[in-house]
């Protein structure tokens, strides 16, 4: 009987607990994060970001500096569970989309913060990179890094 419990009921209970914890914590954190992201993005004194390679030439030439913002974000059990089911039939991975969207926007916000600390008003040539930290091992923690980088334009004071 004990063997039976350990073999079948144990994993089921663990999976359900992980699923519940993942669901509630994931929902709560995501909601909180989005509120914070939107509040910061819409604040009026943000450094502006552009994908354009260079600003129009001006004299005297402004100081330029590489700025970057990086985010490491982890998936939760619930997101993985939904994604696992989705992978069987294909389609939008809703739960991962929001995870990546948050990471991308947060990385840009951190880059802007860095630029602002340097006295920049604009960032040009903004690029984004995403990499999975767990690698290809299916048992590793599924988390990823999003890196945003660009050229900060610091005007002469």
């Amino acid at each position, binding site marked *: *009987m004990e063997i*039976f*419990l350990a*073999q*079948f*009921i144990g*994993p*089921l209970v663990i*999976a359900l607990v992980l699923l519940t914890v993942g669901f509630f914590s994931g929902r709560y954190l995501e909601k909180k994060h989005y509120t914070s992201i*939107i509040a910061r*993005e*819409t604040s009026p004194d*943000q450094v*502006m*970001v*552009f994908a354009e390679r260079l600003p*129009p030439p001006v004299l005297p030439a402004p100081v330029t500096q590489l700025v970057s913002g990086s985010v490491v974000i982890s998936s939760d*059990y619930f997101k*993985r*569970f*939904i994604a*696992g*089911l*989705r992978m*069987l*039939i294909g389609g*939008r991975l*809703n*739960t991962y*989309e*929001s995870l990546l*969207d948050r990471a991308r926007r947060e990385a840009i916000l951190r880059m802007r913060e860095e630029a602002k600390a340097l006295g920049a008003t*604009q960032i040009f040539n903004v690029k984004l990179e995403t990499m999975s930290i767990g690698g290809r091992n*299916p*048992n590793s923690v599924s988390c990823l890094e999003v890196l945003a980088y660009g050229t900060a334009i610091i005007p002469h004071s």
Partner: protein
Amino acid sequence: MRYENRQPPEGINVVEHGWVRDFILLVIGFFAGLALLCWLLLQLVAWTAKWTPFSWEQALTNSWALEEQSSEQQGYLQQLADQLAHAGGLSPELALQVRYSEDDTINAFATLGGNMMIFEGLVDAVDSEQGLAFVIAHEIAHIQHRHPVQAVARGLSMSLLSAMIFGQTDLAQLAGVGGSLALLNYSRQQENEADRWALQALHNHYGHVAGADELFRKLKEEHDDLVLPEWMSTHPDLDARIANLEKIARDNGYEMDGELLPVIRGR
């Protein structure tokens, strides 16, 4: 040129609450489909496994290189098993090999190749030969119905299915639990089937079925606090089994009273 950053609208890259539909549709639809698939596969596999030649099973178990046993106790058990097999009408192409283990587990099991393991704990637990004979006949019935090979085939096909669909994801674990519960249902059906065969063998051998439920009654006294519900267990629960035995005996008109023989315990 004037530069500005406008806030893009939400809901393009991310659909809010997009996971709700996924969760409901996928979980319900997927598990229902999977259950159906498993059920069909199990039916097919069990049906096919019955036609596996017994010699294949024997060839497999011979490769386990189990030691030959020739103790007095093993001889007695083997003789009893052979008598019961004859009384119950074991198919001529099947062969029985009783193995005895000096372990105090109250159990016996039948496995591939007509091998049957009987533990000392079981022999000690029963007082009458009939009590022991019923358990042996029950295990012979499993061999007669080719249950071990069916169980192996079912288990393997479930593992294969799970590996093919889920690979090494967390879902595999959940599916494993569902699959195990499904297998347990088959297991319980097989137990009932085996009980029926065993009772008939006992009736043919002794002329009555007294003492057949001795072990169940003993186990019931010991495990009054059994907590697992029936659907989570490999065997039907004891009350149901005892009642079922009585019903089978009544339906077939087996004599329920008779002389009980003592168990021979070689030391």
